[in-house]
């Protein structure tokens, strides 16, 4: 788990010697959590997703003063936070950018109802696609939903803006979005800590005109939303977080978030209009800034959200004509495109790529090796197992979004018939299944699909760093609870054929797969074995090679376990420090040239 650093220093701030505040180097996400704590948040709900996960993992340390949970998905998380807000306390939900899509149903309407206690949705975008399936810009969703957005540019601002977000939420009766990006969430910089504020819960008063969004009431609230956004846009020009920094006026940048840091780095002499509130935009302030600089450049990662609005006001500016909509920005980008500086860079050496891979002892590798052997195509899903799409496994053919494996398989079957998917399966992890896979499986059952779904149950949310979920039996706050039984859940959906198999027993898995794929019915195979990185797991054995028996056939190397290396003479070595003794290579060897030994 990536939390705060343990290092800190104490800094005297008050002359009376009483006010001693503490400065810590904090991860952006840890600072967001700290800001929530200092703002007096009472509830946080989230589903893990890079780069947002560490917010919740850091919130747990404040569990004496707030409640936090992993919800099954972002829609549920948002609704949990909305309920807490209606009950009169400050509440939040956290998610990655694509999670906002899942939460967008409640988001669009809570924009109408407004809040009770302050309500903040933290959305972490991923320019550069470090760990995501797309590069969407949350500001576009926020504009469509008419929800204001704050965007911090370092850890200190992440904490400060979080507190401000709750104040603005209550002042303007609106949910707020705090937008982060991977670079902000996963960077560390100094933060000065403060004491949390004490906020009394509001007294509940029934107010259906505000909180029951049926047509008659929603019409009235839509008028309120327009007024609110106009008022905020007007007030925004006087908000201190929107700040004009006048220096040399030959170039003026309008920028926000981490992009501000790149401008400061590359063009320290340039004037900057730094926006903390990026929706709605402070028109008056922007018009004034534009009139005082010779050349106006909008520097924003991803979509031209600010640029298009500024241009619509008749202001001449540059933006996406200079910079891309893709990936992360940098200072070098400005040096080249704006300053026309020669950036001296040695050519990068041509080296073999090192893409992420499944770990030694990963149960997914074992399942995929069987699918590959049988020539089966897989409709895939979101998780570590998406790596089954690439060499050497090459078994996953599709990946769209959370839960889509099961529904896309169903679509194929309904469009093309049972035989079309005779050599297809859907593969989905346990956490993703609990997220939205459940709905898709329910649909297969209801609409009488014939097909095979593999739930790869590794007892955790693996890729984001081992978070619990409803089927693991533990909560974010560390409470031990009854785990939801995936077998019973499938059975409750009228699925007759539900089989559990040890993920590492490849002969049993092969047999089961053949049986289920031949069946003209819906079936679920649950492959079970914990993620090799799960805390507390002990691996007593290690695989070793017996070189004299090795026929150099390379069968053991096929699934691409990183603990195995082919020697120059064609035999195989196993790195004992990496091997977890899963035994997959042993099962693949036809010559008994591998065996398990006690560590």
């Amino acid at each position, binding site marked *: 788990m990536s939390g705060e650093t343990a290092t800190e220093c104490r800094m005297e701030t008050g002359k009376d010697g009483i006010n001693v505040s503490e400065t810590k180097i904090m991860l952006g996400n840890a600072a967001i959590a700290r800001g929530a704590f200092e703002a007096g948040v009472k509830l946080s709900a989230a589903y893990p997703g890079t780069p947002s996960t560490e917010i919740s993992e850091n919130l747990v340390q404040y569990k004496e003063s707030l409640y936090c949970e992993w919800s099954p998905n972002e829609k549920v998380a948002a609704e949990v936070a909305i309920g807490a807000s209606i009950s009169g306390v400050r509440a939040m939900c956290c998610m990655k950018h694509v999670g906002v899509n899942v939460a967008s149903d409640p988001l669009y309407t809570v924009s109408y109802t407004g809040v009770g206690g302050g309500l903040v949705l933290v959305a972490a975008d991923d320019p550069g696609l470090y760990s995501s399936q797309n590069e969407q810009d949350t500001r576009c969703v926020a504009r469509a939903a008419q929800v204001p957005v704050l965007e911090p540019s370092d850890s200190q601002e992440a904490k400060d803006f979080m507190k401000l977000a709750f104040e603005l939420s209550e002042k303007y009766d609106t949910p707020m979005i705090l937008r982060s990006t991977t670079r902000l969430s996963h960077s560390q910089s100094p933060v000065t800590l403060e004491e949390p504020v004490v906020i009394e819960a509001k007294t509940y008063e029934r107010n259906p005109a505000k909180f029951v969004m049926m047509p008659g009431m929603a019409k009235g609230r839509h008028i309120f939303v327009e007024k609110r956004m106009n008022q905020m846009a007007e007030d925004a020009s006087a908000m201190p977080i929107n700040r004009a920094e006048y220096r040399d006026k030959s170039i003026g940048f309008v920028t926000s978030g981490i992009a501000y840091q790149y401008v*400061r780095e590359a063009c320290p002499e340039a004037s900057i209009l730094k926006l903390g509130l990026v929706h709605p935009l402070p028109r008056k302030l922007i018009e004034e800034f534009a009139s005082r600089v010779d050349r106006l450049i909008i520097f924003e990662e991803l979509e031209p959200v600010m640029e298009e609005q500024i241009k619509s006001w008749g202001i001449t500016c540059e933006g996406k004509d200079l910079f891309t909509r893709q990936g992360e920005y940098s200072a070098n980008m400005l040096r080249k495109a704006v300053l026309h500086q020669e950036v001296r860079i040695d050519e990068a050496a041509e080296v*073999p*790529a*090192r893409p*992420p891979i499944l770990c030694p002892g990963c149960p997914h590798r074992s399942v995929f090796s069987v699918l590959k052997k049988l020539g089966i195509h897989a409709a895939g899903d979101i998780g*570590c197992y998406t790596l089954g799409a690439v060499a050497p496994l090459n078994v996953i053919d599709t990946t769209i979004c959370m839960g889509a494996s099961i529904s896309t398989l169903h679509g194929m079957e309904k469009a093309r018939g049972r035989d079309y998917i005779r050599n297809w399966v859907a593969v989905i992890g346990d956490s993703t299944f609990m997220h939205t896979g459940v709905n898709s499986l329910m649909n297969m059952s209801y609409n009488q699909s014939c097909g095979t779904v593999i739930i790869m149950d590794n007892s955790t949310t693996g890729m984001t760093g081992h978070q619990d979920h409803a089927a693991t039996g533990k909560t974010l706050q560390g409470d031990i609870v009854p785990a939801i039984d995936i077998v019973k859940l499938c059975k409750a959906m009228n699925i007759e054929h539900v089989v559990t198999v040890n993920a590492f027993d490849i002969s049993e898995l092969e047999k089961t797969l053949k049986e289920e794929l031949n069946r003209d019915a819906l079936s679920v195979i649950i492959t079970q074995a914990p993620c090799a990185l799960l805390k507390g797991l002990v691996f007593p054995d290690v695989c070793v090679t017996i070189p004299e028996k090795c026929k150099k056939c390379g069968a053991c190397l096929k699934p*691409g376990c*990183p603990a195995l290396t082919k020697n120059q003479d064609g035999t195989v070595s196993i790195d004992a420090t990496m091997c977890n003794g899963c035994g997959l290579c042993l099962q693949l060897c036809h010559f008994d040239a591998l065996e398990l030994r006690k560590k």
Partner: protein
Amino acid sequence: MTKNIMIVGVGGQGTLLTSRILGGIINASGYQVKLSEVHGMAQRGGSVVTFVRYGEEVAEPIVEEGQADVLIAFERLEALRYAHFLKKDGVIVVNDQRIDPITVVTGAAEYPEGILEKLKKDHKIYSVNAQQKAEELGNSKVFNIIVLGLAAKHMDFAKEEWLKVIEETVPSKTIEINQKAFLAGYELA
């Protein structure tokens, strides 16, 4: 003057712990510091990079191509991959270890020969077989701290300060072995 340091390696080699120790010592020294890390999918055995920047005032948290003063590499191939991030007079501190990427394991690519010799042509290089040293110390996991110890000679902090920050950063059970590992690297330089 801002100092730019990069820590590169293979996901799982402990770049995050190393950067935290580094961040800790810089913060304690009163400089402004910013770090940038990689979490999530790339950590699964992929190529990972951490940026550490410090000075009077630091704006961006990343080190860009052509700007690194020190490149700390936990694996040879990763040193080569990121060498173009170095300034002209930048220094490489490298753990002389080979970890085959999946592209090499499957035969799609070959692991380059003579990496250190290649890098020596244009850069100052300090290398150590930290894996072996760590095993000699009795804990193969602390190889990254040995490399950090070797790299510490190229930064402006006293030995005692390093040892103190290590004490404050690593789990209490492992303080002694980590300090030993640090000194083993530090004394090589």
